[in-house]
């Protein structure tokens, strides 16, 4: 399985929704504490397990997250730690990039999600406690959602309802929003500690998973949100990111500060179905390919990006 070495510490990795072999990686220097950042666009070579870099963009501050546009195959958005977001177009020459700089957040932008249904809008989650809605054609945000009492770490669009999204925050709650409503429509006090990531089930639009500093992942049904459907324990430290599989109804992947990437089937008694411990530092980013069943990628503070097929060892050549 190929490995890509980044000069800076990895923060996020995302598969392109257009090209099976393309990924974007968000990295930040000095663990994201202070320093520059870089966005890499990498391609998997089909014949040999090699990863080539297509292009890289430097930023003044660390990049915490990256999201591919669902409408343009060459456009991606990067969330930068200085509160801005940069839009890049890989089809344009490098000196024309970035094509946009969207700066409204007062603090670091930590999460991004592009609307897979409408395909023209995306959300940004920031440490300034707010979530903002943007489109590529406007320089200013369309909406600001400010209700959380602490940093918002992650946002996720509902895969079925184009106007519904969820936000996970350090105030230990997950909020469900509808862009047509002025405020949040539901508050799920999911954990006793900060919630770092949330994601919707791609096959059941009422199921949402939350990952928390308390090392657990909980699955919630919004129709009965007082009690979780399932609680997945097994990580040794805080769970940093989770993603539901676009191919399997019950499968989800998580990465954690215990340096492992885990696969879970939450409908099963013994939910942990796979564990990969290839990283030697915090595993902070993980993604599952929408186009290729079973293809997954992860990155961590050990400056490595792994891409592998589920069931294989990421470190084998």
């Amino acid at each position, binding site marked *: 399985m190929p490995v890509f070495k980044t000069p800076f510490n990895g923060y996020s990795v995302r598969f392109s929704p257009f090209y099976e072999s393309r990924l974007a990686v968000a990295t930040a220097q000095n663990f994201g504490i202070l320093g520059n950042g870089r966005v890499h666009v990498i391609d998997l070579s*089909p014949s040999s397990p090699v990863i080539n870099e297509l292009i890289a963009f430097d930023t003044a501050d660390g990049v915490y997250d990256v999201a591919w546009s669902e409408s343009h195959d060459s456009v991606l958005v990067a969330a930068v730690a200085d509160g801005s977001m940069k839009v890049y177009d890989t089809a344009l020459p490098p000196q024309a990039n970035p094509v946009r700089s969207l700066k409204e957040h007062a603090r670091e932008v930590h999460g991004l999600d592009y609307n897979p249904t409408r395909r023209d809008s995306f959300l940004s989650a920031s440490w300034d406690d707010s979530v903002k809605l943007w489109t590529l054609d406007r320089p200013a945000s369309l909406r600001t959602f400010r209700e959380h009492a602490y940093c918002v770490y992650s946002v996720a669009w509902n895969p079925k309802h184009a106007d519904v999204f969820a936000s996970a925050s350090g105030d230990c709650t997950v909020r469900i929003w509808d862009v047509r409503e002025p405020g949040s429509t539901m508050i799920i006090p999911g954990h006793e500690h*900060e919630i770092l990531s949330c994601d919707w089930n791609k096959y059941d639009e009422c199921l949402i998973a939350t990952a928390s500093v308390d090392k657990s992942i909980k699955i919630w049904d919004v129709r009965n949100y007082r009690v979780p459907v399932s609680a997945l324990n097994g990580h040794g430290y805080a769970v940093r990111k989770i993603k539901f599989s676009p191919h399997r109804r019950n499968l989800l992947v998580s990465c954690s500060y215990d340096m492992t990437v885990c696969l879970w089937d939450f409908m099963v008694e013994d939910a942990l179905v796979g564990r990969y411990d290839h990283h030697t530092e915090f595993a902070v980013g993980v993604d599952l390919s929408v186009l290729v069943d079973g293809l997954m990628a992860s990155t961590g503070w050990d400056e490595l990006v792994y891409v592998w097929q589920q069931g294989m060892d990421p470190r084998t050549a």
Partner: protein
Amino acid sequence: MTMTQSPSPPNSNDDKPQAVSAEVAQEANQAQQDVGAEAAKQSVPASVFVNSEPIREDQVSNAVKFLSHPKVRGSPVIYRRSFLERKGLTKEEIDEAFRRVPDPTSSSKPASLNQDGQAKSSSNVQTQAPIQTPQPVAVAPTGIASLEGRQFHWYHAVSAVGLLAASGCGTALLIKKVIIPKLKLWVRKVVLEEENDYAKKIDAKPSLAEEAAAAAKAAAAAASDVAKASQEMLNSKNEERRRFEEFMSLMDAQVQEMKSMSNSIRKLGGQASSSGRVFSDHDDHRVSASSTKQSYANGKVDVNVQLEGRSSTPPASAEPPHPKSYMEIMEMIQRGEKPSNIREVNDMPPNPNQPLSNPLIAPRTKVLQSQTSAEGLNQNGQDDGLNYLLDDESSTPWWQRKNVRITEIENEDEVKDTGPYGVRTNEQPPPPIQRTWVPPRPPPVAMPEAAEAIRRPKSTPKETATQEQSADGQSAAHPSEVTDELQRITKMSESVGALEMNGGFSTGNSAVIQEQENSYGEN
């Protein structure tokens, strides 16, 4: 169109077939009222993302007690709300609790104390004419009344009660020891005078005696009044003591809540500044005092910005082991040094109005089971979502290959799945590229209409345009149609349940869609 029932989330996000009837009912204005209840039942499943629970009174009253606590009053509103949200209250319950919290100046305890003080002072005024000692008693209640403006602490209650008791006893004692002997002396003097002046003032004597008797009676009456007053004082003191006990128990409960609140805040606490990057979630790196801290005492957040660097906070659980260089960098930042490998990067766009390039390919067709019944109307018939970047399709790329083990697991998983998988076939080891999860066809080029769709969610549908699997030229040529198609599709998915799909979709696929929709409808 608007809903008539009160938990009125817009149901236009409902794209289930059931919504058809709900929508139809709505459009009949007259019938709207009648079928309001029906439509409510049918559309409530549509808006599952809204709280539909009624307000729980016990939660609201707990919240009111919490909010009435003086320490909570000093905290910013957002932290009060956040605390209540974490306890599981819904927005409506929290709003109701905020509405019910009384005005700080009219809380019950100081008011009752004030009333008692006034009662005492009025009763003492009655007896003040013949007796001069009740003045200190009068002073005490008014002194207590002056506390009304300040914060009422429990020790104030204790001292007030003690003062009252003491003054009551003192009054009683004084009356017994001083007043009555004085009266007696006075009466004896009068009697002696009577004897001396008996011959002279025979007529005056009886009046004098009468006067003395009357005065004695008045004094006795006054004394009994005072006794009654002190009795009342004792009673009210008892009552106060009782109320005080109740209050103390309430306070204890609130102190418990405050403790838990501060504990949870402390766990989050020690956190970094507004300019510091906070790994507040889990890093246990102890940053020294020079870096930013957040203290939640009294619900206030003190944020001290000292450094530009990032500081982290203790996690609730055990600390994950940090890389050594991470610690080094944190220490460097704390010392105020900047790591040397940072360079000045200008990442501003050279041309902020640079138009985006035209997309080379349209969004891939990715099938998401049954979900796409509503949205996946955009199944492209030609199904060459196989726009590979690579040209050599003779050998499947390495990432497609799966080993046998996975296939077995997949099969197991298949068994567990309840819904149909549509086009998926798992058995063959390079699985067909027909893929996974698909949202509808979007416009390749973002147009203002698309932004309109967000701003005005209930946009009117426009012309349908066939979405061809486009070569680059075509996509540029049909931007508006594609946009319109998006809107139309979204609308369709909401209203019609994606039943009318024309043109460009192969029958095979539409059959698949139908099947998925049916199965979805069953779910």
